[in-house]
């Protein structure tokens, strides 16, 4: 008896596969389970085993050819089984194995002869019972076509099937959807101009900001200390070097000085350059200073990181700040530009703010807010003079940093900023 073995639905719900390699040839003896052919579908390359022991008498298709599910792959001469007995065997094979998730699988693919279609859904059988009571016909369809119809909102009973026995297959659904579904979609999606509110989806960056801010506020009890430091000397140093830097095409703001001063202070107060590891009940102290710089962009806040900020000169810091700022505005920052920060500075002063309660870039231990420079009356040597004042706001994770540490850190930072030469001397 000749047994025609048809290409089964291997479970992806696709209706075709490509022959990648034949393992057998005409006249070859095969045992049940031997690999016959290597088939490739969209995502899967799979060996298709022989369902029967026998001799290969015909092979359908060459390497590279596409075979549709249900079409013959090979014919096997089964020894010792004749005529209708073999057909019965084939039919029995067809129905013995359970079908997983409504789709054919390789383990159940012993489909022979003219019964070489996927098992139909039970809906076809149920139809005959209720046929008289139902006004509309109920289509036969492959499970994947049914699922696709559901996803696309297509009434599968309206679709004419082009598969075996008029079964609806996925290409029928696609065709139907593109001709009718699209048209109906176009009709229904008309924005209502009379709405009082409008809705816009969150950008990815906004979603990330929202998530990070929430996590920080939920995980770390914040404490913020505000200070002011008189920085007239810093102003004069900066104005002296600004022109020199410009010749080298580097813009010198106050920020490189603040970064350097903060980095040096962090080396002295390592708790602020740490993080709490609650899971393992320990502190993680960072022996390097990677300074995150919060940058305001049209898309939202991003925080590129200056690596080893404590080891870099003011010139190098100025250069790097210019670079990351440009990258942030052009949206060309890469993941590595924004990773492994150990502390963050947010310079809202460049926009105009004075003091803030910045939110820690969790799981870091602290964030320094830098306000705009203002001229103010200050007392120096018991004289009231006009000074240039730099507002500072330091927020810390109060679980690991006490008020005393914050104050001592700020004192050190202010000392550096008030006397910028000390930054170079330390």
């Amino acid at each position, binding site marked *: 008896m000749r047994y025609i073995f048809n290409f089964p639905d*291997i*479970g*992806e*719900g696709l209706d075709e596969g*490509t022959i*990648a390699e034949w393992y057998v040839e005409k006249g070859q003896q095969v045992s049940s*389970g031997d*690999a016959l052919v290597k088939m*490739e*579908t*969209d*995502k*899967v*390359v*799979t*060996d298709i*085993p022989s369902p029967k022991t026998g001799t290969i008498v015909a092979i359908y298709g060459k390497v*590279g050819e596409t075979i549709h599910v249900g079409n013959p792959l090979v014919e096997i001469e089964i020894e010792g089984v004749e005529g209708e007995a073999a057909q019965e065997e084939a039919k029995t094979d067809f129905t013995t194995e359970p079908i*997983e*998730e409504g*789709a054919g*699988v*390789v*383990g159940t693919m012993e489909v022979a002869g003219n019964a070489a279609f996927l098992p139909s859904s039970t809906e076809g059988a149920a139809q005959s019972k209720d046929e008289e009571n139902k006004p509309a016909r109920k289509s036969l369809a492959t499970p994947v076509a049914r699922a*696709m119809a559901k*996803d696309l909102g297509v009434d599968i009973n309206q679709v004419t099937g082009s598969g075996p026995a008029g079964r609806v297959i996925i290409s029928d659904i696609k065709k139907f959807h593109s001709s009718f579904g699209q048209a109906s979609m176009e009709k229904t999606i008309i924005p209502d101009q009379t709405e009082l509110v409008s809705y816009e989806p969150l950008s*990815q*960056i906004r*979603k*990330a*900001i929202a*998530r990070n801010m929430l*996590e920080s506020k939920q995980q770390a009890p914040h404490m913020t200390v505000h200070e002011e430091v008189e920085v007239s000397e810093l102003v004069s140093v900066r104005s002296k070097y600004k022109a020199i830097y410009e010749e080298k095409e580097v813009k010198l703001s106050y920020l490189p000085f603040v970064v350097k001063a903060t980095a040096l202070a962090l080396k002295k107060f390592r708790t602020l350059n740490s993080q709490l590891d609650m899971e393992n009940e320990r502190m993680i102290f960072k022996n390097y200073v990677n300074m995150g710089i919060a940058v305001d962009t049209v898309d939202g806040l991003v925080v590129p990181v200056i690596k080893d900020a404590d080891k870099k000169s003011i010139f190098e810091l100025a250069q790097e700040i210019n670079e990351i700022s440009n990258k942030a505005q052009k949206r060309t920052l*890469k*993941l*590595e530009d*924004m*990773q*492994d920060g150990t502390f963050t500075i947010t310079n809202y002063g460049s926009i105009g703010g004075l003091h803030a309660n910045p939110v820690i870039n969790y799981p870091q231990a602290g964030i320094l807010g830098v306000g705009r420079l203002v001229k103010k009356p200050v007392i120096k040597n018991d004289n009231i003079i006009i000074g240039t004042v730099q507002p500072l706001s330091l927020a810390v994770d109060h679980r690991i940093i006490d008020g005393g540490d914050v104050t001592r850190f700020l004192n050190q930072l202010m000392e550096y900023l008030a006397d910028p030469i000390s930054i170079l001397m330390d």
Partner: protein
Amino acid sequence: MDVKVKPYKLPDIDILKDKNWPDYQFKTWIPDEIYIVLGQSNKMDKSLNLDQVAKDNVCVYRRPSGGESVILTPNTLVIATTIRVQKLENPRKYFKMANAKIITALSYLGINNLNQKGISDIAIGDKKILGSSVYRTSQVVFYQAILNVSESTDLMEKYLRHPLKEPDYRRGRKHSDFVSSIFKEGYMISIQKIKEKIH
């Protein structure tokens, strides 16, 4: 224009080559340079911008599993697994198993809105971040996936043509509109951390 396709010899193939497959094994690795990997029956001229690939002298391999061509770079994570099997079952089962493990790991890292799309992709929303494919014999299922941690889609546009077959949810979108990365979706998580979590 001389581009040669090499048989797949990248590190994850080791777990398939050793025929003493345990019930389950897992391997992740980070490529050290740019590689292009063709699916089992992809044709180079249909899948790749061959002039550009040749000009840049990019190594091209052909993997044992199916699917469309992919680019591996140091910003992508390759994930492979073998599952020893007694009988051949619906491959969706294996996609589901492996992808569920990856989705769980990524969720632990705080990544939201992950879901399996198409036959075997993992997406954030409707943007693909992972593609996977399977090679199976009667004894073993070999699953391979590429997770885009932080690679820009520029390289895909540069080297890969629009695939001949695409999942429904792609809806004709070009690489830059369809593919995303964990980084691009707003998650600043290092590739090492992701590798550790998935492993």
